[in-house]
């Protein structure tokens, strides 16, 4: 049996997605900027994708910019959002559990004279809203909060946060990293007071190398890439038509039969956690005293006492079970996970945390097999540790 439980890292491309991409590679391969009919054919795929995305978010098609993926979306939102608004101030607010593609652009902005406040989260990864609102000052221009945390699956109350921010200072840009949440949640930027929203294609069974940035109409953001002026100058470069077409199809499928998919994943998550709770020396992170429905449906973070995550990962791999280590760690240079530390895990626990992540195609059988395998492996691995 094989169990791919690393869907928060990437997902398998769906056959329908592959099919539409093949069309753009083999038949409708024109440059969408070309005047002739080949160009028009290619452009139709872009229109299709924009329509699907706009529909899913209830926004205008013109508010969507296609980019190379989540990292580029976050970079443009933060760096180009801050630069475009630097006359209004130099202060940015974010949380302590952001992804590196948010964190590192902010580190860059700090080197360029911006000031960044990092707001605390509680033991379940929920952002401290009072602290966030309190931090808003005269010179605050941008707030960036991730919707779903990639390591523990914490869900932030984006609508609530958006409302509070705008109430205190309407001019602030509100950016949401929705890379782990889009396709798993219904996100409506207009109702949630979101100005900028980052999404990646390959987390929702689309291809790698494509994503989009939602930019609310009339929001001041600069381009990150300059060139031939495609996408109204907001993102130059010949459009990645195969990627965009594939993304469009993936979005269409993610939001078709949406409720059933999500219910299935929550059912899996509850089922899996119940099985894990029967095992000794295991702790599921980020669910302390809250309903599972208040966490992401697809992420389960588990700390296994006395086993290094990297070793457990390779032992599971040997049984065809694919997961992620909770932290990118190596023996010599432990780069400890920011999220796991922020929710209060000790260094030892951080090094012993692995992440399981589902897709809507994950089955109960796979999870049973996984738990059975864990029951076999954990006691053995606990015996062999560095002393």
């Amino acid at each position, binding site marked *: 049996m094989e169990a791919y439980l690393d869907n928060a890292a990437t997902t398998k491309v769906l056959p329908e997605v592959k099919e539409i991409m093949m069309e753009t590679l083999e038949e409708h391969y024109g440059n969408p900027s070309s005047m002739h009919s080949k160009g028009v054919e290619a452009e139709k795929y872009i229109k299709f994708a924009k329509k699907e995305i706009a529909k899913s978010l209830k926004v205008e098609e013109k508010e969507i910019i296609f980019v190379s993926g989540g990292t580029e979306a976050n970079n443009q939102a933060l760096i180009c959002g801050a630069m475009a608004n630097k006359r209004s101030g130099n202060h940015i607010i974010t949380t302590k559990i952001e992804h590196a593609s948010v964190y590192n652009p902010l580190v860059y902005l700090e080197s360029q004279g911006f000031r960044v406040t990092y707001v605390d989260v509680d033991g379940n990864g929920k952002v401290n809203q009072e602290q966030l609102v309190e931090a808003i000052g005269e010179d605050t221009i941008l707030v960036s909060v991730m919707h779903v945390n990639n390591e523990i699956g914490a869900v932030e109350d984006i609508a609530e946060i958006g409302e509070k921010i705008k109430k205190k200072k309407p001019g602030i840009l509100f950016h949401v990293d929705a890379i782990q949440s889009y396709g798993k949640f219904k996100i409506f930027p207009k109702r949630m007071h979101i100005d900028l929203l980052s999404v990646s294609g390959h987390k929702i069974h689309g291809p790698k190398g494509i994503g989009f940035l939602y930019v609310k109409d009339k929001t001041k953001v600069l381009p990150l890439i300059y060139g031939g002026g495609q996408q109204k100058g907001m993102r130059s470069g010949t459009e990645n038509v195969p990627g965009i077409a594939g993304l469009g199809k993936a979005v269409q499928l993610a939001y078709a039969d949406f409720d059933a998919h999500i219910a299935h994943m929550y059912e899996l998550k509850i089922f899996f956690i119940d099985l894990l709770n029967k095992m000794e020396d295991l702790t599921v992170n980020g669910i302390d005293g809250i309903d599972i429905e208040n966490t992401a449906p697809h992420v389960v973070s588990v700390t296994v006492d006395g086993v290094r995550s990297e070793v457990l*990962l390779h032992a599971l791999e040997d049984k065809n079970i694919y997961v992620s280590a909770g932290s990118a760690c190596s023996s010599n240079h432990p780069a400890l996970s920011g999220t796991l530390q922020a929710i209060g895990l000790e260094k030892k626990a951080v090094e012993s945390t692995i992440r399981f992540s589902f897709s809507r195609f994950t089955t109960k059988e796979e999870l049973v097999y996984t738990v059975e395998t864990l029951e076999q492996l954990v006691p053995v691995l606990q015996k062999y540790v560095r002393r």
Partner: protein
Amino acid sequence: MLYKVFLIKYAEIGIKGKNRYIFENALCDQIKISLSRVEGEFQIRKEMGRIYVEALSDYDYDDVIDALQHVFGIVAICPVKIVDSTEWETVVVETIKYVEEVYDKQNFTFKVAAKRANKSYPKTSPEICMELGGALLDSFPELKVDIHQPEVMITVEIRKQTNIYSVVIPGLGGLPVGTGGKAMVLLSGGIDSPVSSYMIAKRGVKVDAVYFHAPPYTSERAKQKVIDLATQVSKYTGEIQLHVVNFTDIQMYIYDQCPHDQLTIIMKRYMVRVAEALAEKNGCLGLVTGESIGQVASQTMQSMAVIEEAGNMPIYRPVIAFDKQDIVNIAEKIGTYEISIQPYEDCCTTFVAKHPVTKPTLSSIQKSETHLVKKIDEMFARALDTVETIVIRPE
């Protein structure tokens, strides 16, 4: 001007007496192998104590030089102009033409060196030098003679034909691979063992390699890293048989049965035993490691003596007295450093004790090893039975 011929200079091979042809043939073979990765057709000729590489088709000059600079035994590579005549007037005209074609500006100091293989040639070597020097000065007024430290040394050799050259590109030196027997390298993934492989191969030794894999404690990426290292080293050593040994069971058994501060020493003794068995099977005459005195606890003289005792074969340690930085310098030169510093664990670091012994005694280690008698032979045999051998070729 496109050179058609490269003159290959070699030093040590020249003094190997009656065995000389063996070394020359080995060098020709190695040159052939190295050039087989370069586009174009080449002929390698041995002629009166010289090796010539002749291009029979178009080729890329930089690629050829790069290929030749990866062959041990070559001291220098000289792109040479060949004139199919020894007639004096022609020699003078062609030498002037050569200087005109090879140098953009003829404004350097120079000296002519002449060599006659043909001793019945009507002019002596000093006469050739003087007259050619004069002819060059007449043709290029900005040239100056400097017989002590010339910027350019123009060599003219009168043989059956005339060779003219002045460009000398350094080679690696050493001896051609295959002339010094074969050895088994214990390749870890660190910085030192690839450098040791390179150094022993430089003395003409063909290398095989063994890597100890310990899944799940070491990852597929750690193994891939060793494959990448071997591939880089093979640019110099030629094809390498990489033997991947699954070491997990043995390692765990030692962990269960022996004192922890002795873990690394006992583990390494078993590595020596496994490597030796593989070496014998593959016709190797010794083991090679990247050990350097005092670098880690298992590389003190006491530790190495105890480790070495586990086997019978000689263990060669090319970097034994090198400082880390000196090893790093070589690793950077041969292109293994960047690969070695990727952060994947090898099986030696996984369970290393916080305070390992640095001065083990053989008797205490042997005593600990008696705890292993029950299962170790069976595990040892299984490790050898399940060896995966990967043939590594330069890319």
